């Protein structure tokens, strides 16, 4: 009873901190019996999911209209540098995202992780929950010091999760690349905070908010933040780690990285650009918008030609992050021209798309995990026909597929709709060139959204439809019940947001109120949104769903009543060709061929085509990222060359090192004296 009373009087912030501690405790408990799968998977992961639900609940509390911002100083950290935490609507929204999606992933993980796949389950449990806790702490942090500590913990714990199967060299390589990019980004963030304090040397966000920076320094801080968070989120050209690290990690971890960690980067970008820097001149928005649009198109085009299902999803994540940043840039742009309602619309689109992407991308990554467990195959060329062997996973993945393709009445459509509405209003920007250039961004968004549909048909069609491309697929089994519950939870989120979009927008209203001081217009009902004006544009997912379902039901009954429902099972017609082998179907390469053809200059293509008189004809094609060969490898060569040049200093003799210290000392003394 006392505990209940204590909980009732505790502030949401205090409860959240306890929940984070609970996550850490769950993680540590995993070490008690690291090899007992029953202990770790059946007890600890579901416990973690419960904690995640509670985190989501607390986040939702912070979004209610009458919630006042809460902050606290923790008795942790360095003596003069205690940790500050704060809960406001922005962190509340991202905690809601983290908790609700994290709960689904944790339930799935409870059924997914098993003995003998690299790291011991107990250790995995620790890394997993430290990862979750560190993400929550990044969102709660209210000073640069805690922010960076949590940020680095997040990077490290996810690095260990990525390299779960560290015995494979390519996974170690992917992990190293990820760690490298994470630290390049973190370095930029460190510098960014170094600029933000504005000479006061106080590391709390409060003092950074109050600091007045000269335009040049503010711009420097913004660019550093864009670089740092962009590296984490996967903006072009800093995206190279994503398609390596996501496939290397176990599927629940890929889902967490793509669904949650990328969103933490979006949170950081919002926190710094809107809250700490109070937005800036219009070119900030223009730059973010341009980078976002390029990233979106790039990701979509590359996703279309992938042959590994998890790489395909990783590129699709790049695309979606691009859309989120484009919306964010649009919000910055409109804010710079003091068009608050329009900025609120764009920001709402960005936040809703972040939430939607977290839901459907996690769902799809988890579904690939089930497929991977059932078939031991990641390559699209060796899958197929799984809808008949794995009906549960296939059905739930279909929801995610249709959402990601941006089809009504699911959630992906709502955020794209909002984004397009925001673009439509940009001609009212009072600037001669911008109001002409920016609406054309809608063309890129439309193209990207349509490409996403292409990619998703390929993804779903090649994995789940058609005939099995390998005989072993006939033995594939459906996912266990815990995995199904996890998938169903996320699929339910996709459907609910799609059908009741206004309910999601209500949650976001608190964030736009905090950051921009305004909210978009409220729709007439939870299932009806009208962000600008009812006569101008409105959309109701529920009515659309009811309309379609009604037509389908009426038609079904009519056909049965007036005619019949007789079915004869026969072998497929296939235009009269007698034999039908799985090799006759389109391959993943074949499905991507039109895109490869049309967007040729995007890719670096290596082809090996057999000559007519080859005894063993072999066809091979490799599609690479131009950035990798054009930017990263030369950079790596320069770094290697510099290191070689500097290694002259390294003589391996103690006397010479002593000489170096002596010389340094003298030089410093010259400066001091």
């Amino acid at each position, binding site marked *: 009873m006392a505990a209940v009373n204590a909980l009732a009087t505790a502030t949401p912030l205090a409860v959240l901190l306890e929940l984070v501690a609970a996550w850490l405790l769950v993680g540590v408990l995993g070490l008690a019996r690291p090899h007992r799968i029953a202990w770790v998977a059946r007890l600890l992961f579901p416990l973690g999911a419960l904690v995640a639900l509670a985190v989501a609940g607390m986040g939702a509390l912070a979004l209610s209209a009458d919630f006042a911002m809460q902050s606290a100083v923790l008795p942790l950290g360095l003596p003069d540098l205690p940790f500050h935490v704060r809960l406001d609507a922005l962190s509340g929204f991202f905690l809601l995202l983290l908790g609700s999606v994290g709960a689904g992933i944790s339930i799935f993980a409870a059924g997914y992780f098993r003995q003998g796949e690299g790291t011991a389950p107990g250790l995995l449990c620790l890394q997993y929950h430290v990862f979750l806790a560190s993400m929550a702490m990044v969102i709660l942090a209210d000073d640069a010091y805690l922010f960076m500590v949590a940020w680095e913990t997040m990077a490290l714990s996810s690095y260990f999760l990525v390299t779960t199967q560290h015995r494979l060299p390519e996974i170690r390589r992917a992990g190293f690349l990820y760690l490298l990019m994470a630290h390049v980004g973190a370095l930029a963030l460190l510098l960014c905070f170094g600029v933000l304090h504005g000479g006061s040397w106080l590391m709390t966000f409060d003092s950074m908010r109050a600091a007045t920076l000269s335009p040049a320094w503010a711009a420097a801080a913004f660019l550093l933040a864009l670089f740092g968070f962009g590296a984490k989120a996967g903006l072009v050209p800093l995206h190279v780690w994503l398609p390596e690290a996501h496939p290397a990690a176990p599927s629940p971890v890929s889902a967490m990285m793509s669904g949650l960690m990328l969103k933490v980067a979006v949170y950081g970008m919002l926190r710094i650009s809107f809250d700490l820097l109070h937005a800036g001149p219009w070119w900030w928005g223009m730059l973010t918008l341009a980078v976002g649009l390029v990233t979106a198109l790039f990701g979509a085009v590359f996703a279309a030609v992938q042959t590994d299902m998890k790489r395909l999803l990783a590129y699709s994540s790049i695309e979606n992050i691009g859309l989120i940043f484009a919306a964010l840039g649009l919000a910055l742009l409109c804010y710079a021209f003091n068009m608050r309602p329009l900025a609120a619309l764009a920001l709402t689109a960005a936040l809703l798309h972040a939430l939607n992407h977290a839901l459907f991308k996690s769902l799809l990554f988890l579904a690939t995990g089930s497929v991977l467990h059932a078939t031991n195959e990641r390559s699209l060329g060796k899958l197929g026909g799984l809808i*008949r062997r794995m009906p549960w996973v296939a059905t739930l993945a279909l929801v995610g597929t249709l959402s990601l393709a941006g089809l*009504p009445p699911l959630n992906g459509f709502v955020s794209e709709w909002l984004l397009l509405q925001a673009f439509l209003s940009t001609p009212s920007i009072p600037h001669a060139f911008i109001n002409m250039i920016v609406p054309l961004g809608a063309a890129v968004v439309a193209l990207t959204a*349509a490409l996403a549909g292409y990619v998703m048909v390929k993804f779903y*069609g090649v994995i789940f*439809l058609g*005939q099995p491309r390998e005989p072993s697929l006939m033995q594939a089994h459906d996912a266990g019940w815990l995995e199904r519950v996890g998938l169903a939870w996320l699929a339910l989120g996709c459907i609910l947001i799609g059908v009741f979009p206004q309910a999601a927008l209500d949650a976001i209203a608190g964030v736009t109120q905090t950051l921009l001081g305004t909210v978009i217009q409220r729709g007439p009902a939870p299932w009806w949104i009208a962000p600008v004006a009812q006569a*101008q544009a*409105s959309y109701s997912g529920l009515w659309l769903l009811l309309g379609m379902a009604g037509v389908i039901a009426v038609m079904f009954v009519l056909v049965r009543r007036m005619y019949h429902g007789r079915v*004869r099972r026969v072998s497929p017609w296939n235009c009269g060709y007698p034999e039908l082998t799985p090799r006759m179907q389109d391959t993943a390469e074949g499905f991507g061929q039109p895109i490869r053809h*049309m967007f040729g200059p995007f890719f670096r293509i290596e082809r090996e085509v057999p000559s007519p008189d080859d005894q063993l004809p072999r066809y091979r094609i490799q599609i690479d990222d131009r950035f990798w060969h054009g930017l990263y490898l030369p950079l790596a060569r320069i770094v290697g060359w510099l290191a070689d040049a500097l290694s002259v200093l390294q003589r391996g003799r103690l006397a010479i090192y002593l000489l170096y210290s002596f010389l340094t000392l003298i030089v410093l003394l010259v400066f001091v004296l």
Partner: protein
Amino acid sequence: MNALALVSQLGGVVLAVALAPLLAGWVAQCRAWLQNRSAPPLLLPYRTLRKLFRKDAALATQASPLFRTAPYAVFGAMVTAAAIIPSVTTDLPLARVADAIALVGLFATARVFIALAAMDIGTVFGSMGARREMMIGFLAEPALLMVLFNAFLMFGSTALPTIVKGTLDADGLTLHPSLAFAGVAFVMVLLAENARIPIDNPGTHLEVTMIHESMVLEYSARHLALIEWASWLKLFNYACIGFTLFVPWGIAPHTAGPLGLLLAIVWLLAKLAVAGAVLAVIETVSAKLRIFRAPEFLSMAFLLAVLGLLVHLLLQS
């Protein structure tokens, strides 16, 4: 919302569903006349539907539930789309439920379902057709959206009834240059999306060149009937979108009574007759493009629509 609005909403949907096969029959007849063939009966599509509904469905052994659901989903999406296009009257209660962007979304839903169903059996032509359909679709969809954007920017709304009202309320006939670009782009999208001649041939019997037909090769009986009906409805919907954007005259305004609605139906029939004949002419005078040229055709439509957008923004500022 009054009773008349509800009746006209429901009536509009029924009218679209009922008239769509007639439009298809009319286009086929015009085509035959222009090509010096003896024309099939105007009501042939209705007879085809009846024939198909009566037959037993022959389903491939490995067909999944998705394969059987898809025809209903495609038909449902197309009928819902018909419900939000102001073909007869602008007084559509459902038009506030879904605007023109949602309309594009509904078309995309239908396309994705039919492409997925085509891949379900795992035949040669099914998956090839699905790939080609998605290739056409991913270029046609943004082009259509850009065409609609031209109208949105002009009237500041994505709701189709508002766009119609905007054109009807304007004094006199003003020619907008941006709409000219958009119009050309729209016709190109219409041809591509409805499997018409420069891109696809609705009457073809050569599997290798098919797009739409190769996707539905495995369908039979009632499933095929629904898919065919849905594709005719799609043509009808596209024609009506064209009317709302470019020739909205004759569509009954909010204030129209029952007599006005009847007049609007006559107008619609007249416009459909002309549009069908024009479509037949276009199909007769043009040759089918190689499949590899289809992306060029569609990217031109996309660029034209974007150009229209640019022209509008340039003239406005």
